[in-house]
């Protein structure tokens, strides 16, 4: 049996609130920092979904580490069961896309980092299946919405890429 410490992930989350006036309107800004106690990793966020993603990645790594000596089928099954408990991913997914539309450059870098990390740690085969499983409960209209949003996202990324190129050339 695995030791309790190896099966535990603790997170410290700090929220910092700023209320201010802008254009005659009261506004609120939240800034936060999340730390993973056991390995010291930290991430700052202004959107709580980033903190959730941070937690999910660390918890995924924990499950992966605890099941590394099992067969790939067993490991896959456990990871899938673990994922099914993280129902929030269904909320996080669309939100990540929305945020990508708001700030494609930043979000694209984040996603790239996360995907790279996942591929390196979980392995190609499981990684592919996990992604499909995350969307198992999505309806046809959900897929249509996602498709539209991805198309919009692609167009935004193209625009950003053009801008970056023009900045580089200047």
């Amino acid at each position, binding site marked *: 049996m695995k030791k309790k*410490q190896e099966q*535990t992930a*603790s997170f*410290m989350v700090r929220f910092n609130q700023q209320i*201010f006036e802008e254009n005659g309107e009261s506004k609120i800004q939240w*800034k936060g920092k999340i730390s993973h106690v056991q390995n*010291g990793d930290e991430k700052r*966020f*202004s959107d709580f979904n980033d903190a959730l993603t941070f937690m999910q990645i660390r918890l995924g790594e924990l499950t992966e580490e605890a099941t590394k000596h099992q067969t790939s089928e067993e490991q896959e099954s456990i990871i899938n069961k673990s994922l099914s408990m993280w129902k929030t991913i269904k909320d996080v997914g669309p939100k990540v896309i929305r945020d990508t539309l708001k*700030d494609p450059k930043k979000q694209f870098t984040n996603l790239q980092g996360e995907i790279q990390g996942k591929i390196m740690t979980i392995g190609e085969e499981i990684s592919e299946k996990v992604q499909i499983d995350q969307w198992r409960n999505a309806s046809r209209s959900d897929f249509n919405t996602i498709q539209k949003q991805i198309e919009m996202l692609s167009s935004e990324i193209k625009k950003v890429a053009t801008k970056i190129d023009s900045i580089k050339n200047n």
Partner: protein
Amino acid sequence: MSDFHQQLLELQTFQENAQIRIETLGNFGVWRNQQKIEAKEWTRDKTIQLLQYLVSNRQRNALHKEKIMDGLWEDWNDRDFKVALHGINKVLEPERPSRTEAMFTIRQGVSYQINLDKVWIDVEALEKYIIIGNEALILDKAISKKAYKAALNLYKGSYLPNRVYEDWTSEEREKVQLLVLGTYITLAEITLKENPLESIRLAQNALAIDATWEDAYRIQMQAYILKGNRPQAIKTYMKCEVILEEEYGIAPLPETKKLLKEIEEIH
């Protein structure tokens, strides 16, 4: 002598005369009758862990033995606890006659706590100095500054840095860090007009703890302007803008932008 003066004096006297002094900020060390206790005296790391756990939870009511053990070790038995507790008492009171109550750890049935009336602990003193500073802030700024400075002198680094990966230390570490950040900023604000250079230094110390602490950038901008260094004030804003963009993907607050505008309008 005012109440605040008296309280400061008492804290100072306690620090100087306490038989047992425990430092947890930046490093861990225990002094018995002004002599530092050597590492070898502790014999087992579990003894040190138990003492540090009691320090971390010192403001809660006496902690039940099982709760302490669950928080500290995954596999434990009564013997582990007894040996560790005995280890603490032996190190803190080597001359204590057998069958007498320990002086520095308090036992109530099967619950335990540190005797805060007899043991001086840096984090406890730091918090008390800050409380005096906050309470005196409106009535007596001089006392307030003195108290804040005394608190910041105790901050030599993060709480129990060698236990950073133990979750039972996180809460205290976070609490102390926020208290210290707030104190640097408040002291920098009340020092600003009479000593802008000192305000810059205090704000810099806050930024060394958290580089995204926007208040600290604003204070530095104001201080540089008071020193007549407009370029440096603008440079400070730029630094703030870059770090907020990098870390959060957000722009500085309108208050900070407004300050920049005021600085830019100075000729």
